[in-house]
Structure formats: C-alpha cells, structure tokens
C-alpha cells in the first residue's frame, strides 16, 4: 500500500515537473512559429471587374471577401477595393444601400463601413496593373496605392467574366494571363511581396494562373479550363443571382475562421468540391516555398501582428525645454483670427462712391448715390 502511494506521488511529481517544461516548449514553438512565416504585414487587393445590374453577384462576391478580410483584422488602409459598378445605389436595386449575399436578404455585405478605393470607370486594366506594379502618378493618394514591402503577404481576389487566358474588365477590355504573370514578376523583382495568394472566381479561371513564373505564389481558381463557374442562387425579390457558388462556399468557410484559428491552406483547397460547385476548383502550389499544410489561413486573410515586449528603456534626465526658449528667434505674433467678411460692404460703398465721383467728373451730371 505504501509502495503504491509512493509510486503515485512520484508519478504526480514527475507530471508536475514535466508539464511546465512542456508548456515552455509549446510557448517556444509558438514564438518560433511567429517568425517562421516571414511576413510582418498583410495587404489585400480585391477587384470586381464587371458592371451592369445583372452582374450583381460579382460585386457581392468581392464585398463578401472584403468583409471577411476586415473581420479577420486587415485594416482599410491595407485594402485596395476596386468595384466596377455601384450595386448598392443602383436605380434597379429594390433595397437601396444594401448588397446581399444570401437569399431572403439574410446577410448584407455592404454594411456601413465600406471603403471603395477604385469605383466605377476607374477600374481598368491599366489602373489594376498600375496598382500592382506601383507605377502610379505622384498625385495618387495613399489609399489608392499598394504600399507593400518585402515582408508583406498579399491576397489578390479577382472576379468577373473570364475565358481561356483572359479576364474581361468593364465589358470593354481584357487582361491576359501573360500580362498578369509579367506584373507579378515585376512585383517580385522589386520585392513588393513576401508571399502572394491569388484567388479567381470566373469561368475557366485556372487558365489565369497557368502562366505564373515568379516564386512564392499560390493560386486558387473556381473552375478549370473549359468549365464554367456557376452562380449560386437567385433572390426573387431582388431579381438577380446573388453570389457565385465558389465564393458562397468560400464565405461560409471564412465565417468559421477567427483571428486565432489554426486552419491551413489544405482546408481552403477543399472548399466547394465538385458536388457542390459543379465546376472543379483548381489550385497551384508549385511556386510556393512552404508546404501548404503549414500555411495558416490568417497568414493571408487576417493580419496577426508580431509583437515583442519592449525590454529596455532609455533614462531621460534632462527636463523639457520651457516654452519661451522653444519659440525660436523672434517672438511669434499670435494674432487673433477672425473670419473674413463675406460681403465687404464697407469696400463696396467706398468703391462705388469713388466711381460715382469719377463719373460725375466726366459727365458733369449729378452724382449717383448708392
């Protein structure tokens, strides 16, 4: 009996000792994982390329990805959202200021916090390539630029109408897969990304990533070459199809992801199998360095910051310089500010009096008093 007690106490002590050790190991691993992905910030470029009311679903696609990305932490300053048409305020929208993704108006993806950077006719192939390569005119504001560096993970999402090797923009121009591959190569040359995830939801979407040749690219498409991507469900009240199948199931998958989740890319590849999507989603990972199973969803869709505790501080002993010294040479005359007279009555009267005077001098008539 005593021996049994001794054994259990020994085992218990051993357990107690080994648990903290295992925990510290786990913490070490977590810390190591923080720096294993190699990125410090996240960007997203979300593009909807089609206009007209019946392409409502493409805008809803883009907005639902925008909403997921924002929910998982990427701020608006790091998202470039390009919508080719305004569905929320379209004349044909029976529910203005809303864009729904689920039928029976369950989920409004438009919300009240949407920041569209390129709208309407600004969404062109040229602007899209300019955003990617960074060759924007100097007057472009910060919100319209992709200011990524060599430690940024970028998510690029394209949706619209496409074909074998091209994607249609605005019903009037196309971007070819070669142009896209060249644009990514230029981004790589200038080290504008650390890793890039490219998702495309169009017909024959897999043709768009066939020509990629730059490293650290992972691509997903909603359909293979020769297949069409289909839309999901119409809403009878609104009168159009609300979402595409692939993005609908992608949105459902992303709704379950939260900022601390450990879901990885292999789960993303399984989204929308052929039984649900009718088309066969494809993916391409040969250009990617890491194993997709070790890539977290939040590496691209979220923005988990790496933080370190500040250990050292600097001891500042000198006191603040008093205000008088800081004003520099010469005292600044602080004048009290007033508004400018909107109607400078005094000047008008004065001026007209002079004019009247000169008039009277010239014509020798009676001066006119205003």
């Amino acid at each position, binding site marked *: 009996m005593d021996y049994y007690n001794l054994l259990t106490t020994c085992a218990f002590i051993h357990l107690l000792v080994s648990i903290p050790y295992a925990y510290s190991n786990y*913490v070490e691993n*977590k*810390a*190591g994982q923080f*720096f294993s992905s*190699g990125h*410090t*910030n996240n960007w997203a470029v979300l593009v909807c390329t089609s206009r007209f009311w019946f392409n409502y679903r493409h805008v809803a696609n883009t907005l639902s990805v925008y909403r997921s990305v924002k929910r998982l*932490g*990427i*701020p*608006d*300053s790091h998202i470039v959202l390009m919508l080719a048409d305004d569905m929320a305020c379209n004349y044909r929208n029976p529910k203005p200021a809303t864009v729904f993704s689920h039928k029976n108006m369950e989920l409004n993806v438009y919300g009240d916090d949407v920041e569209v950077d390129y709208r309407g006719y600004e969404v062109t*192939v*040229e602007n899209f*390539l*300019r955003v990617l*390569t*960074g*060759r*924007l*005119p100097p007057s472009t*504001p*910060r*919100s319209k*630029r992709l*200011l990524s*560096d*060599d*430690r940024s993970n970028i998510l690029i999402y394209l949706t619209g109408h496409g074909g074998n090797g091209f994607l249609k923009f605005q019903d009037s121009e196309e971007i*070819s897969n*070669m*142009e896209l591959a*060249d644009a990514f190569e230029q981004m790589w*040359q*200038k*080290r504008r990304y650390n890793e890039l995830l490219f998702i495309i939801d169009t017909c024959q979407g897999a043709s768009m990533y066939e020509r990629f040749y730059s490293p650290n690219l992972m691509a997903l498409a909603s359909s293979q070459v020769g297949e069409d991507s289909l839309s999901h469900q119409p809403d009878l009240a609104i009168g159009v199809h609300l979402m595409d199948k692939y993005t609908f199931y992608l949105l459902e998958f992303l709704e379950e992801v939260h*900022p*601390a989740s450990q879901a990885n890319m292999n789960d993303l590849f399984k989204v929308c199998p052929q039984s649900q999507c009718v088309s066969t989603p494809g993916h391409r990972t040969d250009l990617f360095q890491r194993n997709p199973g070790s890539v977290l969803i939040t590496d691209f869709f979220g*923005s*988990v*910051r*790496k*933080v*370190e*505790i*500040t*250990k*050292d*501080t*600097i*001891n*500042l*002993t*000198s*006191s*603040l*310089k008093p*205000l008088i010294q*800081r004003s520099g040479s010469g005292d600044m005359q602080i004048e009290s500010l007033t508004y400018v007279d909107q109607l400078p009555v005094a000047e008008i009267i004065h001026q007209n009096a002079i004019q009247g005077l000169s008039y009277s001098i010239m014509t020798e008539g009676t001066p006119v008093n205003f």
Partner: protein
Amino acid sequence: MAALQLEKQRGRYAALAIAAVVIVVGIPLWWKTTETYRAWLPFSEISELDSLQLQLSVDIEVVFSRGTLTPEQQKKFPLSHVNEKEHQLHHKTEFSCGSVVVYVIPESSTLLPEDVKVYVGQRRTALLRSPPFKTSWNLKEVLSNLDVEVEQVVSTMSFGHQDIVAALSNRVRMTKVTKESMADSMRAIKSSPGYEITFSLLNPDPKSHSLHWDIEGAVQSYIQPLLNKLAPIANFSVDSQILYYAVLGVNPRFDNSVSAYTLSADSLSHVINPVEARLGSNAASSNPVLNFLLYVPDAHHSPLFIRDHSKRKVPSNAFHSPRWGGIMVYNVNEMYGPEAERPVDININMAKVMGVFLAQLRLMLGVQHTHPPTGFVLQSPGSAGLADWELDRLLWSRSVENIATASTTITSLAQLLDQIGNIVINDNIAQQVSSAVTSLQSAVAELEAGNLAFALQYSREAILASERAFFDPSLLHLLYFPDDQKFAIYIPLFLPMCVPIVLSLLKIVSEAKKRRADKQAKSD
C-alpha cells in the same frame, strides 16, 4: 502583236516598279513608324553592377599611450610611426564619420577596472587595455598581437560579417538563418527616403481623465536630437494626435494576486488591428509610418499591466510590433484619489514616456542591440539617444543596403526593358538610370576608400534615382500583343495588297524562265 508585246512589257515594268517601291520604301517606312522610342541605356555598365563586389574599409587609428611600450621598443619604431604628442583626450574632438580610434593603455593601468578589457566611448573612441607582450618584440609583432583585440573592437563599433550579410539580405536571401538574425532583419524598417513618425494619445475615458501632454516640448527635447543626428539617413516628419473613446480590442483580465488588470503576451497581437483602423495617416506622402501610441486605461480598468510570456511584469509596460511602431500603457490611477472631481486633470510625465518611445524608435530604425564580447563596457548613449559609433553602424548597414537595393532595381529594370520590347523608354528615364548608375559607382568607390558620409550620400542619391526610374508611370507595358493578335491586325491590311504583287512577280519570273528555255531550244 507587237503592241501586245509592248503592253505586256509595260505591265511587267509596272509590276516590278511597284514591287520595288513596296520593298525599298514601304517596308522601312512601316518599320520606322511602328517602332517604339527607346532612349539609350548604359546596359554594359548595368550588367557590371549585377556582379557587385563591395569592399568596405574602416579608418582605424591606434594610439599607444605613454607607458605602454618600453623605451627600447619606442626607439625601434621607425621614425614615421612615432608621434610623441601630448595627446590629451579632448571630449570635444570630432572624429570623421566611419573612423575608429583605439587608445591602447598599459596593462597595469588603473583607468579601467580589473575585469574590463575595453571601454567604448560615445564618440567613436575606445580604450583598450593592452595584452601582455614581450619587450623584445618589434612594431610588427606588437601590432599583430593587438590584431585580435582591435578587430573585436572594430566589429563592435563598425560592422561585423553578420551585419553586412543582414543588410544584403534583400539581394541575397540568407541560406543559414538564425532565428535572432531573421527577427532582427524583420524588425528594422526598410531603408526609405523619408519616414513619418506619429505620436498618438488614446484616451478611452474622457469623462474621468482629462489628459494633458506636452508633446511638442517632448518631441523638441527628446526626439528631435535623435532625428537630427539621423538626418543623413532620411527625412523625418513628426506629428501627433489625440484620440478619444479609442479602446483596445482586447478585454484585460483581472488578476487577484496583484489586484490589477493584466494583458497577457498572447493577446497583445490582437490589440493593434482595431486601433489601427482609427489612426489616420498623412495622405500626401507614401513614406512608411511609425506609430507610437500612449494608452491611458479607463478608470474601471486601471491599473493595467502587461505580462510577458513567463507571466512576469514588464517594467516598461510597453510592447512594439516590427515595422509598425509601439504601444505603451500609462497608468494614472495613483495620481488621484477616489474623491477627486471628475474629470481629473492629469499631466503626463513625458520624460518617462519618451524614454520608452525613444528605445522603441531606436529598434524600429535599425539600431541593433549590440552584443559585445565579454569584458567590454559601453558608455551610455547620452542625451541624443544614439552614440556616434551606433550611428556609424547604422550608416554602414544603410549604405550597403541602399547600394544593394539600388543595384537590384537597376538590373531588374534593365532586364525588364530588354525582355519586353514594346515599352517606350523616355529620355527622362534614361537620364535617371544613368545618374543612378554613376551614383552607385561613386558610392562603391567611396566605401572602398572608407569615406562613410560620402558613400551614404551617394547611395541615397542612387536609390532615389533608381526608384524614380523604376516606378515611372510611363513604363506600363500595356502594349502586350500576343503574336496571333499581331497577325490578325496585319493580315487584312497587307494581304490584299501583297497578293497581286507577289503573283505578278511570280508570273514575270516564270515567263522569263520560259523565254530562256525557248532561247536555249532555239539555239540548240
């Protein structure tokens, strides 16, 4: 019959003439008018840049103080090396940027404590206790004995192998990466012509606390000296803001043992994102922004402490995120009692706050933690927050990084322009490229000569010119036409015109052949 022959002859001449005009005039004209304007670029020099050979040299002056060498050794030294100067150690002596002066003191000297071998001063000088050496040695042996120590001093004060490799990591991906060096390279912000520094005060509870911070004074007194010292590297612009009702995205937990609220280290990474949505930034510039946030917890969640991974209290109560900035939590609950009238006027102690922010700013800008070897003592940085030799370290790594980045940009631009024949190269781009190439060559030459200040200046010019050339808006290759599209455009234009010409030429040739065959037959 003769008239018919004449007609035929005239027809033949006409066809030949048209063919001649098309070939001689038409084809060159078409070639010229569909050519894209490409200004000349110095491709040969750019390809030379591709195989960049950097040579860095540091000016080291070794001064033997009196009593280090025996008089016999002093006599043995060649005259040119002996400078018997009453060299007093002036504190105000300015040594040129990038140089290192090592004063060697006798082994038995009491200037330095027993176990301290080297004392590194603020201004590029160091005191080195001389290692034991025999009295019979001549100059060469003495210097070679000092080699190891001097090399240690120089690698602490200027650069070591690891620093240069890290600076070149943009161009040469490191194969063997230690976690620490990767963390270091990810923490420091990339070299850029300018930076924006924003100080924000977050007040989630204006009803209880009415906060006053003298940010202008604090920036002038504490931050501006550091930025002035760093002026050769980049332009800095500083602004500040106060945000009301801005909350952290994480709920702190109440810890009974210290009766305070705590934020664990794991939850810190989720704090930044909700706050960042509210921080504005200067829309006019595209410079990277460093944010420094001062968070004063609301009255119900005071005091708030940050715990590190081992659940210990963090003395600075602050954390930072690489390439983004830092956040400090400032507790004010001790400054007033429960009976004080709300809102309470609180003056924030800017010295304490700026001490933390200054340390974080140093880390963000790339002033690495130096891990000197044992026996080294470093003098504290002083009021500017940055010792001269720390600045030198930064300048060395920055100039190397700038040179690497600029050369990569230029070579990739040249490659791109070579590959895609349809891009128009304007004169201004060619000029930027040429100036970038010349600046790069000067920078490399200055590094070799050891003039750090000039090297940095040239490297900055090089990087500015190369970035401007690479990101010029006119370089967009929207002229990508696949070959089948080119055929589709030209065939409807040229085929109807070329078919009659070619057919008539063929007919002329076949007729000429038939006539020659007839003549042969006749002559036979």
